[in-house]
């Protein structure tokens, strides 16, 4: 029905390619160091702090921010909100690449990455929450791959296989939402086993619920946020329907995000109240907690509502950005800042620059793959030969 406009020339030595290329080269060098020298060669991890930036950012934040896949799929396929249809493929692509990068980061973080399949094929440890996380992430990655593959198959012109996969959409979506609920909440459940190490303002027996609810908000916000970035970089690839419904997506998702953030704020307050931790708010950690709650949960919730009321997509985009920051803040707080809070300052952890370097490298690889796919496959537009499929 619609076709993309005239494609923009993308030269080989574009600013993006140069920067991304540099990062990737540095990343490859850091990878060499990591796999020849062990974890100690590139990280500040030690026996008191065994999980660091890679787990805190790449795993925890990565999984939360890739939640746009299941939230959009839920909205479009299960709740039948067809007007968000244009956002579905980009969200699924982000989800797929996001989870793939999580797995890549894990290859760096675990001591023997070639043994990652062991829990599932050789020696399961089902008493572990991590087992649950691993199994669900693995299955969900397969689901995302299957949901992404129609885009690739359209690009390759494979009709039959594509039709089979498209028929499975609803099934995959429901499976995906179930798996996402499980592993998003399980990432929070990972920390249930350490009440003596996690600051009481963040520790709660409701951690799984907190993680799940905030992942919904994260997903909705990331779709808005990435839509904003995509418009800047790939507007030429977007078809009429996409451009037309962009603002509707922003407004719709903004409204939903407001509700979810409000609920999240409420249950966090309940968490503090039920454990009677009010006094802790008057400490330095309490200040940090308040900053996270007021500045990055309550504030974006409020901004979302105002934006929706005033039909102001720009405000909603800012709110989405704040929410994304808030999720990153929350996950890093739980994993790095409020964790081991009782240790003396000398024993606390701060990431080595090489750890951050590898994380940037992994993210860049993901962004590069995204760029590659988006400029070639029907993500922002409908392929003319397959328009009946939607």
């Amino acid at each position, binding site marked *: 029905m619609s076709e993309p406009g005239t494609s923009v020339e993308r030269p080989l030595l574009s600013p993006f390619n140069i920067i991304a290329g540099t990062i990737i080269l540095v990343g490859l060098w850091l990878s060499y160091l990591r796999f020849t020298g062990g974890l100690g060669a590139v990280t500040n991890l030690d026996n008191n702090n065994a999980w660091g930036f890679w787990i805190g950012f790449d795993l925890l934040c990565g999984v939360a921010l890739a939640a746009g896949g299941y939230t959009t799929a839920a909205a479009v396929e299960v709740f039948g909100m067809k007007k968000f249809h244009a956002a579905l493929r980009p969200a699924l692509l982000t989800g797929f690449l996001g989870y793939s990068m999580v797995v890549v980061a894990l290859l760096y973080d675990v001591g023997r990455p070639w043994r990652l399949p062991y829990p599932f094929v050789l020696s399961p440890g089902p008493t572990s929450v991590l087992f649950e996380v691993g199994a669900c992430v693995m299955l969900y990655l397969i689901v995302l791959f299957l949901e992404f593959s129609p885009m690739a198959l359209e690009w390759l012109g494979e009709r039959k296989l594509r039709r089979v996969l498209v028929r499975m959409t609803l099934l995959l979506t429901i499976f995906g939402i179930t798996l996402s609920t499980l592993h998003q909440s399980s990432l929070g459940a990972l920390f249930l086993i350490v009440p003596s190490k996690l600051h009481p303002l963040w520790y709660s027996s409701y951690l799984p619920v907190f993680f799940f609810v905030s992942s919904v908000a994260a997903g909705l916000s990331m779709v808005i946020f990435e839509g904003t970035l995509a418009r800047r970089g790939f507007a030429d690839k977007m078809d009429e329907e996409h451009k037309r419904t962009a603002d509707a997506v922003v407004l719709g998702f903004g409204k939903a995000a407001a509700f979810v953030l409000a609920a999240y704020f409420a249950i966090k307050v309940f968490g503090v109240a039920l454990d009677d931790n009010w006094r802790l708010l008057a*400490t330095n950690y309490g*200040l940090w907690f308040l*900053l996270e709650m*007021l500045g990055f949960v309550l504030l974006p919730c*409020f901004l979302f509502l*105002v*934006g929706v009321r005033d039909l102001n*997509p*720009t405000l909603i985009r800012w709110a989405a950005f704040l929410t994304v920051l808030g999720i990153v803040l929350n996950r890093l707080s739980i994993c790095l800042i409020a964790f081991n809070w009782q240790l003396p300052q000398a024993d606390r952890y701060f990431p080595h620059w090489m750890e951050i370097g590898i994380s940037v490298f992994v993210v860049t690889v993901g962004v590069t793959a995204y760029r590659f796919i988006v400029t070639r496959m029907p993500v922002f537009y409908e392929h003319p030969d397959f328009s009946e499929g939607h």
Partner: protein
Amino acid sequence: MRKAEARSTMQAGHWTSIALLGTLLICSFFMGGCTPDAAAEQTGRADLVAFVDGVSLDHQERPSVQFPHDLHTEVMKERKEDCSLCHPAHPDGRLSFSYQRLDDRGKEGGDSTNVRVVNIGDDEIIDLYHDNCIGCHQETADTGAAAGPLACGDCHRRRPPYLSSREPFGFDKSLHYRHVKAAGEKCEACHHEYDEAKKELVYEKGKESSCRDCHREETEENRSAFKLAAHEACIGCHREPAPEIKTEADSVRPQLCVKCHDLQQQLAIETIEDPPRLKRGQGDFMLLSASKADLESSKLRTVPFSHVDHERVTTSCRVCHHDTLESCSECHTLQGTEKSEGVNLFRAMHAKMTDHSCVGCHDTEKTAPECAGCHDQLEQARLPEEGCELCHAGPLPELLERERSRYRSLDDFRAGPSEVALSFALDDVPETVEIGALSNEYEPAKMPHRKIVEKLTQYINENSTAAYFHGHEDVVCQGCHHQSPVGEKPPLCKSCHGADSPDLELMKPGLRGAYHRQCLGCHQSMDLQKPKDCSGCHAEKEEAQIAASGGIR
């Protein structure tokens, strides 16, 4: 299109920045709660008086006031004023210990310390304090001198500047004697009894007792609490001694709180070594037994007790007699009474963890370094099965009346030499004992056996009490040669302590543990400096020697 977009971006920017600012403001509001207290350190004072005892913190509108009494006493002295500046006098001349009023007894909420519980809305009392305190401060301020606080929060401080360092105070023998001397041995200057019939205080010779015998923690009907009585009596007399009291300088009669209640000041009080005995008609020597009523049922021999010797080693009568100077068995009957709070005679004499009982106090003596080497190892919680007759050496209760007059002192009971007894000659004790049963990485240990026995014997003989209790033959050996027959050739350690393993059932260490715990434990308890390390007892073997003897196990 562009204009509208620009306007909405600006709007968005405005909203965001306003909201961020608001968030930061709220956060900084909470920051006040978490900045570290730059408040000054609290200084300790021994003279703090609190005005609102008993009011629960929930009901107070303002925090309690910490009143530094000595500070005000000093000011009063400078102004050549008298205590009556704040404390009115009773009709009989006694000072009231309440502020600007006679006592609160009888008033609603008046309690033992004579300070009335101040209730919210108790305007009468509150005004009394406010008008007088602030009034006086104001007057001083008006003269231009440095004055006390005037604003509410300067007295009712949220973060009080002082910490109470008040130590409880009591008499010991030395201080009591100094007062006896000053009063010319007139006990009636302080001691009194209450005559129920005449409803007045009288003096009865021979009935003098500790103040706490009557004056309890709380004020009762017409009997002041101990705290009140003590201050009335002591400070009252220090202020205005009765004419018959021979005192020296004023400085000897302290009236400041710190002079009695500050730890340093307490340590600085002049002490008289070995003051003359307190004269209360007590005997030098007595035979301790159950009370007359219980004598029939008690078949245990009486205990010869040298009261004069015990007076010498205690700081005051109260160490044993806690409150009353009556005989122990008056309250501590065989079954115990309400007055003794159920503590029966056996417990009163044999309880382990208190200085009031014979056994408990003697146990404390055993913690001295000369004794602790052996005694630290012995089980604390149990009375030794043998040795009752060491104390219960007197006549049987049924013969008590008849025999009492025969015994005048402990010497009538001490038979034989009061020193360590051995069933063999000291020279027969081996000079060194080579302990090589476990020798492996180290050479055998050469223990200076005779020197140890000589030293322990010396310590025991130097102390007549210790010598008496160690008079049994070969008792001194049992510090190390425990739970086995003693004599010239006691069993070796390895007879009972297996070389390989501790015995969990019988709760006995193995040989290695037995050696080290016995030796090192004793050295530690006796605070011995040598030996400093392993080779002090047993020299290290060379590698080759270890290999030759079969290697490390």
